[in-house]
């Protein structure tokens, strides 16, 4: 049932503007890959090419090893691809009940028995009473669930999801996301999800592919992507990042946050000499600089780098945690993401420590 998706060097231009410039993605059978990109990065175009609504200019798309699109002229039409499509905002058929929407892609006999529809309502966590309702009676989150149920009903080998949670409020988003992830893994369907939301991509994808200006910047499991992004740009795109000048000496680097253990992702980063240092704000812990003691609000973690003196510039309270902006000794700036139990006030001198290795890159143009 479920099948691997391969996109090989897929390229597409609209009116001579390149939207995709040779994209490779492989989604292993039964897994979900999230394509993360800003608006205009070409992610929706990639999805539409996989679904069959557009043909690539060059490159191939294979589903379960069978080519469904090869360049501009040899494309299997969408209705014969067996690719489920969950559109933005659902796009439910307004003239059909929820049950008829879900049953739309089923064969007549299957539609008549209604077993599959009941099964899918169950799968996406909606009660059987929903079958008789009409799309306009549903909330936004319910509409998305029905859209997914409709796409999954004909047991497609692959499902593509186009920003399926956009426009939902935070609580509903989390809940709907969990319901969708659960339904997809229960059906064991291969899925390609495109989104501009970092948290969504990192939380849902077995792998996350970062699409930048029509090309894949990096494809990796979420933790690898977050901890070891290929360059500073990707680092900043998938999360907050502190970037500092540093001088590398083998496995350590000297920077405004002290001497830190480092890892090089970028082959171009010199083993010794000037580098860009990328630190995640949650790697930074702070302690109020009381001589000889460690105050609550920061904790010294064994194995962390050396401590550095810093001044608190501002504190942004976020609830469970807070973002503390720091002025470093050399005039540089850093942010620390800390638990909000006890926060220093602005102007306070603190010591900052970095836990875990930092990532170094060849210095970028300033």
């Amino acid at each position, binding site marked *: 049932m479920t099948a691997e998706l391969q996109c090989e060097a897929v390229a597409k231009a609209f*009116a001579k503007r390149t939207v995709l410039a040779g994209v490779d993605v492989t989604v292993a059978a039964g897994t979900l890959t999230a394509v993360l990109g800003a608006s*205009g990065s070409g992610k929706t175009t990639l999805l539409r090419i996989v679904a*069959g609504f557009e043909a690539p200019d060059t490159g191939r798309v294979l589903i379960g090893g069978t080519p469904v699109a090869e360049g501009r002229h040899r494309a299997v039409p*969408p209705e014969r691809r067996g690719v489920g499509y969950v559109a933005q905002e659902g796009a439910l*058929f307004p003239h059909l009940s929820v049950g008829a929407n879900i049953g*739309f892609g089923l064969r007549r006999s299957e539609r008549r028995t209604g077993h599959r529809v009941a099964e899918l309502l169950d799968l996406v966590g909606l009660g059987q009473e929903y079958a008789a309702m009409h799309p306009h009676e549903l909330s936004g989150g319910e509409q998305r669930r029905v859209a997914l149920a409709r796409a999954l009903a004909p047991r497609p080998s692959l499902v593509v999801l186009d920003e399926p949670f956009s426009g939902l409020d935070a609580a509903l988003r989390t809940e709907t996301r969990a319901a969708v992830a659960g339904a997809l893994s229960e059906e064991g369907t291969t899925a390609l999800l495109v989104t501009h939301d970092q948290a969504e991509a990192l939380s849902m994808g077995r792998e996350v592919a970062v699409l930048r200006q029509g090309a894949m910047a990096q494809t990796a499991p979420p933790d690898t992507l977050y901890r070891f992004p290929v360059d500073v740009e990707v680092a900043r795109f998938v999360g907050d990042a502190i*970037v500092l000048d540093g001088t590398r000496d083998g496995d350590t680097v000297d920077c405004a946050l002290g001497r830190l253990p480092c890892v090089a992702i970028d082959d171009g980063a010199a083993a010794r000499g000037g580098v860009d240092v990328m630190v995640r704000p949650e790697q930074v812990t702070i302690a109020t600089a009381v001589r000889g003691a460690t105050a609550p609000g920061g904790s010294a973690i064994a194995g962390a780098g050396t401590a550095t003196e810093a001044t608190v510039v501002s504190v942004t309270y976020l609830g469970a945690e807070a973002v503390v902006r720091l002025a470093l000794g050399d005039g540089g700036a850093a942010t620390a993401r800390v638990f909000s139990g006890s926060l220093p006030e602005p102007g306070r001198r603190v010591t900052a420590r970095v836990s875990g290795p930092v990532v170094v890159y060849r210095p970028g143009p300033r």
Partner: protein
Amino acid sequence: MAKAAAKVRAASLFARPNAVRSSTGASRRRIPRGLLAVCIGAEILIVAPVLVTIDQAISGGWHAAQRDLTRAAIPTLLLHTLVVAAIVTPLCGVIGLAGAWAVERTRLAGRRIWMVLLVAPITVPAFVTSYAWVSVSSAMQGLAGAVAVTTFTYYPLVFLISSAALRGLDPALEESARSLGSRPWTVFRRVALPQLRPALLGGMLLVALDALVEFDAFAALKFQTFSTDVYSQYQSSFSVSSAAVLSMLSLGLCLLLLGGEAFLRGGASYTRVSMGARRPPSLYPLGRTAPLVHGGLGLLATAAVGVPVGILVYWFTQASSSALAAAAAGMGYLLPAAVTSIGLGIGGAVLALLLALPIAYAITRYRGRWIGAIERGSYLSYALPDLVGAIALGYAALHWVRPLYESLALLVVAYAILFVPLAVVALRTTLSQIEPRMDECARSLGAGTFATAWRVTLPVARPGLAAAGVLVFAFVLGDLSTTQVLLPPGMYTLGTQFWTNSSTVAFAAAAPYAAVLMTLALGCTFLLMGKFGRIRALAAPR
């Protein structure tokens, strides 16, 4: 500082605000071959009368054609035709658009009543309106009457199309403009009007084409244009080729108009991104202009609907007893005439829908060099004076499809061909508001092009289908010239009975037919009003 700059640069690399998407997010692929074949089949039927007429014009020979075209009357006729079209088209554009804006966007008192009153004139047969005006004042014969009657009959086309387009606009656009400091008039001029342009031009094109070939009204008003001249040529000499040669001039004008509309519209497309209105738009207060707007619309409604209805009532009340007796004697014809008229109307509407559907579907869903040709080809049914088109169809039936000759079926075919542009416009207005993603979902669920149209697009567009059908039905009821040429001998309709009686000045006898026609017309108005340009939209989530 340097880091901040680097951050900005990195961020700007990810966000490309001007990135090109496929123009509408819709899949506007090339038209599938099967659909193209169906469209071409429909177009061949639509263009058939034109081709037959061209053949007839050629068959008369060059000298005869030269003689027909250099008659002394020709420049006058040309002038009359062009002047009427040139006055009526912008007039209908302004009245229709202003009416649509007032009804859809201002705090007009009794908006729904105004909507009915403004749509109603389109369903009133032009020959009834003409007779009403002539009996008000004989000064209405000639240019003034021709302009008045054509304007009142056809401005609702612009009104219907523009108000449907206005309803489809995302209210957020106008709200944004207002929040940027634009006054209502500026919002109209700078935001709404540019987006209404394709709809407005489409409506005005229909009006102009109608004005060029109008016959029934002009004949009643004794106003000489090509159409009426063709009729007199045909009556005096029964020369098919002379009539055909004259029609070539109107064919030329029609092609010029189609080219002009294509030029003015440019690349503007009927397809919109927004999925119809999700929220009701905010309505502008009329303020001090309120009496003016209400008064203006009142005057319009009085002239367009009040006069025909008033005259009808007058005929009923003023008739002498002997006239009433004569009228009563003729009442036996009323029911059969009504049955024939309604039957023809339904037949014409159904067939016109069948012809228009593939065309409207293709032009709202696909792109490519065929699409422009398919769209403009459907307007060619307005290229000939009705009379000439009808004669051509009769000729074609006599020579190639004998069983159809002098049958009601042929008349139904003629109506369908004649009114197919109206059906296309009504369907296009609705179909273009349907979210293209919905089609794509259906396709990804295994439905092919035809299955998608049948199971998704058409059910969602049902109100639009109803509107298109009703519009054609009303125009069939209001047709006279095609009916008179092709109606099988011994049969009669409400229109022909009205014509027979009113031309013998037996107004009391004509009145019942007009009354039934008007009642049917107003019924059509009610059906049309709420449905034109509507889709079964998905309401916003709670």
